Structures are given as structure tokens and as C-alpha cells.
């Protein structure tokens, strides 16, 4: 009897356990799903789109914001006269009549006509009272300054799921911060379709994206964009770029490339224009690189400003190659100041050899050559420095005057800016502050990456570069009264294993005022046709921009 009772008891316990397990499954494991199913029977789930964060220039002006746009659609069932429909819309929307006619012939209730129209156009269409036309409101990225700093800002396109996503530049790099998080609203209605108050709070709030405050100076950027465009056109060049950095903080003041594109209509441009060549393109820097090699040699103590070059009386022969100066003029016993002033290739071969391969590679490392700078933009590439065992004597010699080695413009500018900053190399940055929708701010602090040269060396090198501006090839275009440190560059372009003598990348790099630098800048002009030399193309653009920046910063001439 007791045994049968125990069996019954165990049976009941098992049943209770099964019931409890099932209850746990429905009430805990499946609770959220069932709740959703329940609510969906008497309410509607709506997505509340979050607002994408803005991108501001240093004066707080949005160069990337949001605006309301409309999708124009049609109901083909209500369109009785297709020709009249198209003729009425065409002056406002510039439609492709054949394509719209085909859309209207479909057996559907909804066909898209055109995306992204503004409010004014929408109101004009509404006033025409065309049967079968409707509008869907949507949020669209808006760039008030159009193509200003286009490659730096990037653009917003769609991802595979049809969601907004930032590509290239700041839009791409900071996409996660900018995009925010969409919210969900449960709209519960009464019999007449009106929302019921007691359930209004039943929502997950949308979290708007964060806003980025950048170091880009809108006035300087605007001026640089214009002068670069004018310069590229004037010198018949294929393209051009300019980068300006504050050497003390690493903040990018302006970054411009031409040709560029309008981010709000990026589809209309070639995809080749999307990437920012200032951070994504490698080029042989030519003579602008001499300033880094000379600074390294002075810092290592292997040469002094008055050291005489014993091999500069004629072409230098290394490994079967003759290395000549750019104008085939040679200066016997020239000193290091004059080597930079004359942009003397033979003198730089002497300097590179005195420095030696090990020290050259060590200084490359501390100047950041061969490494990505870490700039906060999507698409930065780093240059490649060969392993030590693959270097031949000719490689060391040509590296001395910036050939046979590739860098990105940002890499060169950041390394050069170390000379202007007492020998300290800063991490280049564009975003200086991230602002949350709640009003909190996160500041991005300047970061020292390395100290490739001493402060003393930086001062000596600055004087050598000031002398190069005052007496060098570009002296005809210098700014009277201002002490500017700088160096020209004319690099030949390697094509199919040899250098094309008629195709060059002309450049000028410098900083001002030399005694208390407020900016360092590099101007690069790709394949100019009016003159192949940096002193006659990039240098005038550099000084034209520098003049306006010094005036804008209210810095008077010192001499």
C-alpha cells in the first residue's frame, strides 16, 4: 500500500515539475516574444529613427547636418493619363519619361518616382493637384557647404540592409558615434484609430547620434579649396592637395583635394574621387624629404650646418648610376645650409651616407615614415619601408633626396611638423570634441607620438629652412616681412620601372611664422604642365595661402 502511495506521489511530483517547467518556459523564456505578440494584436510597433549626429567646423557650423526630404511616389491605378502626368512633373523633377512611363504601366498600387526632393519642390507639386501622386517623408544627410572638404567629411549611403551608413572620411570613421540608435514605439489605438493615453509611455526612446566638433577652420578650408582649384587649373595639373596642421597640437586646420565631389550627390561622381588622396595615396616626396634627412643627420651629430660636402663638385656615381643635381650645377665644398638652399642631390647623398642605413631607418621610425599616423579618418594607408637586408647603397643614396621611397602626404606633413614643434611629433587629429545628445562632452586631447629630434636640432633646422625660402629657388614668391621655413619638392613619377622626366609631382612644404609656428602646410600638385618644378607651381600656391592665413590669424610681419 505504502509503495503504491509513493508511486502516486512521485507521479504527481513529476506532473507538477512538468507543469512548472512549462510555465517557466512560457512566462520567463518566451515572455518577451509573447508580450510582443500580444501587443501586436491591439497595437502597432513603429520604428522611431534616431537623428544622425552633426559634424561641426571649429566655429560650430555644421558641415554635415540632417534635413527633411521627400520621396515622390505614384499610384498607377489612379493615373489615367500617363503623358499628362509626366509633363506636369517633368519641369520640377527632371524625370526620364520612358522610365516613369514604364513604372506607371506596372500593375501596382505604389511606384517610386523620385527620391530626396526638398520641401519647396514638394509644395509646388502639391499645388498642381496631380491625381495619384503622394509623398513619403524621410530624413536625409545635408551638407550646407556642398563640396567643402568633401573627401575629409565623406558621405552617407545605404548599407546592404538599406540602412544609412557613413562611408569614407569622418562619416565613415565615426559612423558608430554618429548614427545613434533607433527607438521603438508601441502605438495602441482605440476603435477610431486614435492613440490611447494610458499606453503612450510604452516606448523605447531613440538615442540620437553624437555630434563631432572638428578642428577644421571653415574660413581657411573655404579659402584653401578655392585657391587649390584655381592653382590646379592655372598650372594645368591633373590634381592637387593641400594639408594644414597645427604643429603644437596635431589638429588639422584644413585638408583639401581637387578634383572633389558633392557628398549629397556622391552617386553622380566617379568612385575614384571618394577616397581622400591626402591619407590614401602614396607618392615619392622628392626634395621636401631632404629636410627630414638633414634634420636626422644634424640630430645624430654626423654633420653640422657648416660641414663641407667633399663629393659635391660633380655627379656622384653609385652602383652604376650617376646621381646629378636637378639643374646640373655643382658647388664644390658646399655646406649643409647651401645643400638645402640649392636642393643639392649630391649633397644629400653625402648626408645620407654619413648618417648610415641603421640610423636612417631608426629616424624613419621616429619620424613615423612607414607607419600610419593614426589620423581619425577612414582609409589611411601606411607606406612601406623595405627590411634592412633589402637595402642597397643606391637606395640609401636616393632616399637622401626623397626618391625611391613613398609616403602619404599626411605622413610627410606630420613628420615635418615635428621640426616646427621643437622636435615632438604629434598625432594628427580632426575631431577635438564629441558631444552627446545629453549635453556631455568628451574632449580629444593632443597626443605626442614621438620625439625624433631634439629642440636644439629643430631650431637649427628651422634656420636652414628659413634660409632656403629666403635664398632658394622659390624666393621669387616668398612673403615679404615674414620668416617662413620651407622646402620645395619636384619628384619624378616612377612609371613602368623608370622615371618619366616630364611628369612630376611638384610640392612645397613649410611652416610659419618660423619662430612661433601657427601652422605647417604642404601643397602637392600632380603633373603640372606649365612647369614641372615645385618652386614654380606649388610654392606660389603655398605662399598665397600662407599670406591669407597669417592675415586671418592677425600675425603682422616680423621684419
Amino acid at each position, binding site marked *: 500500500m505504502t509503495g503504491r502511495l509513493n508511486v502516486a506521489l512521485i507521479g504527481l511530483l513529476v506532473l507538477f515539475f512538468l507543469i512548472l517547467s512549462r510555465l517557466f518556459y512560457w512566462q520567463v523564456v518566451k515572455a518577451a516574444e509573447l508580450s510582443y505578440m500580444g501587443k501586436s494584436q491591439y497595437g502597432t510597433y513603429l520604428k522611431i529613427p534616431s537623428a544622425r549626429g552633426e559634424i561641426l567646423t571649429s566655429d560650430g557650423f555644421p558641415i554635415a547636418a*540632417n*534635413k*527633411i526630404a521627400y520621396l515622390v511616389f505614384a499610384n498607377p491605378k489612379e493615373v489615367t493619363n500617363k503623358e499628362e502626368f509626366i509633363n506636369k512633373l517633368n519641369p520640377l523633377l527632371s524625370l526620364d519619361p520612358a522610365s516613369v512611363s514604364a513604372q506607371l504601366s506596372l500593375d501596382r498600387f505604389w511606384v517610386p518616382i523620385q527620391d530626396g526632393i526638398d520641401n519647396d519642390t514638394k509644395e509646388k507639386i502639391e499645388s498642381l493637384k496631380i491625381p495619384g501622386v503622394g509623398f513619403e517623408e524621410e530624413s536625409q544627410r*545635408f551638407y550646407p557647404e*556642398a563640396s567643402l572638404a568633401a573627401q575629409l567629411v565623406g558621405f552617407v549611403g545605404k548599407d546592404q540592409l538599406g540602412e544609412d551608413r557613413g562611408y569614407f572620411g569622418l562619416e565613415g570613421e565615426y559612423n558608430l558615434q554618429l548614427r545613434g540608435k533607433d527607438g521603438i514605439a508601441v502605438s495602441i489605438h*482605440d476603435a477610431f484609430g486614435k*492613440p490611447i*493615453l494610458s499606453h503612450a509611455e510604452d516606448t523605447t526612446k531613440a538615442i540620437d547620434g553624437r555630434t563631432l566638433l572638428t578642428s577644421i577652420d571653415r574660413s581657411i578650408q573655404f579659402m584653401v579649396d578655392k585657391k587649390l582649384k584655381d592653382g590646379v587649373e592655372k598650372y594645368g595639373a591633373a590634381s592637387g592637395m593641400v594639408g594644414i596642421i597645427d604643429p603644437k597640437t596635431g589638429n588639422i586646420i584644413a585638408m583639401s583635394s581637387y578634383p572633389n565631389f558633392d557628398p549629397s550627390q556622391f552617386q553622380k561622381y566617379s568612385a575614384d574621387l571618394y577616397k581622400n588622396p591626402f591619407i590614401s595615396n602614396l607618392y615619392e616626396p622628392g626634395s621636401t624629404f631632404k629636410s627630414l634627412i638633414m634634420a636626422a643627420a644634424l640630430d645624430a651629430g654626423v654633420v653640422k650646418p657648416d660641414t663641407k660636402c667633399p663629393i659635391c663638385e660633380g655627379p656622384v656615381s653609385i652602383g652604376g648610376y650617376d646621381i646629378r643635381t636637378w639643374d646640373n650645377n655643382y658647388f664644390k665644398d658646399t655646406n649643409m645650409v647651401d645643400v638645402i638652399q640649392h636642393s643639392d642631390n649630391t649633397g644629400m647623398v653625402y648626408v645620407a651616407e654619413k648618417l648610415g642605413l641603421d640610423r636612417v631607418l631608426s629616424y624613419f621610425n621616429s619620424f613615423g615614415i612607414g607607419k600610419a599616423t593614426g589620423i581619425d579618418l577612414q582609409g589611411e594607408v601606411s607606406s612601406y619601408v623595405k627590411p634592412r637586408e633589402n637595402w642597397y647603397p643606391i637606395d640609401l643614396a636616393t632616399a637622401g633626396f626623397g626618391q625611391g621611397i613613398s609616403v602619404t602626404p599626411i605622413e610627410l606633413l606630420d613628420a615635418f611638423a615635428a621640426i616646427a614643434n621643437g622636435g615632438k611629433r604629434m598625432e594628427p587629429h580632426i575631431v577635438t570634441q564629441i558631444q552627446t545628445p545629453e549635453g556631455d562632452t568628451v574632449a580629444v586631447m593632443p597626443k605626442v607620438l614621438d620625439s625624433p629630434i631634439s629642440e636644439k636640432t629643430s631650431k637649427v633646422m628651422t634656420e636652414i629652412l628659413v634660409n632656403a625660402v629666403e635664398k632658394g629657388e622659390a624666393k621669387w614668391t616668398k612673403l615679404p616681412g615674414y620668416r617662413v621655413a620651407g622646402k620645395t619638392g619636384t619628384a619624378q613619377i616612377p612609371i613602368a620601372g623608370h622615371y618619366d622626366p616630364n611628369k612630376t609631382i611638384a610640392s612645397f612644404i613649410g611652416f610659419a611664422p618660423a619662430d612661433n609656428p601657427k601652422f605647417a602646410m604642404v601643397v602637392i600638385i600632380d603633373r603640372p604642365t606649365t612647369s614641372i618644378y615645385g618652386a614654380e607651381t606649388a610654392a606660389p600656391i603655398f605662399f598665397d595661402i600662407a599670406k591669407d592665413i597669417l*592675415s586671418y590669424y592677425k600675425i*603682422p610681419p616680423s621684419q
Partner: protein
Amino acid sequence: MKKLVSISVTMVLILTLVQVIVSNTLSTTGVKLGDMQDQISALHRENMILEEKVLKASSLSHISSQAKDMGFLFDKSTVVISDHIPLAKR
């Protein structure tokens, strides 16, 4: 005991009456809520449209082209007044 029952019945009647009144009031606030939400959306839309107009009008590209159309020219001369100019000379 009788008193307790009468109080309870009275309370139930009062609470029922209150619920009827509250339910009646709330049933119409849904309409008001809908109107308010429509107003918020309309104001938000108008705000964004105005903001877009302000940004377009205050962009440097717009100001620059307007200035050009109005005949303004870029002044390339810079006048620097040195702070070392003496007040009086002999």
C-alpha cells in the same frame, strides 16, 4: 456588521462612479493626444526646414556668391599698423 456592509456598498458605488468619470475623461484625451502629436511633428518638421534654410543662407559658398553678385571684390592689400610707431618724432 450592518454598518460595515453599508459602508462597503457605498464605497463600491463611489469607486464605480469615479471609474466611470475617469474612463469617460480619458476616452477623449486620446483625440487630444493625437492632435498634440501631430502638432509636435509639424513643428519639428517646420523647425528642420527653417534650420536648413538658415544653414544654406549662412554657408560661406552662398555668402561668397552673393557678395560676388553684389559687386564686392576681394581686397588683396593688407595694412599692418606696427605697435612700435612712436607717438611723436623730433
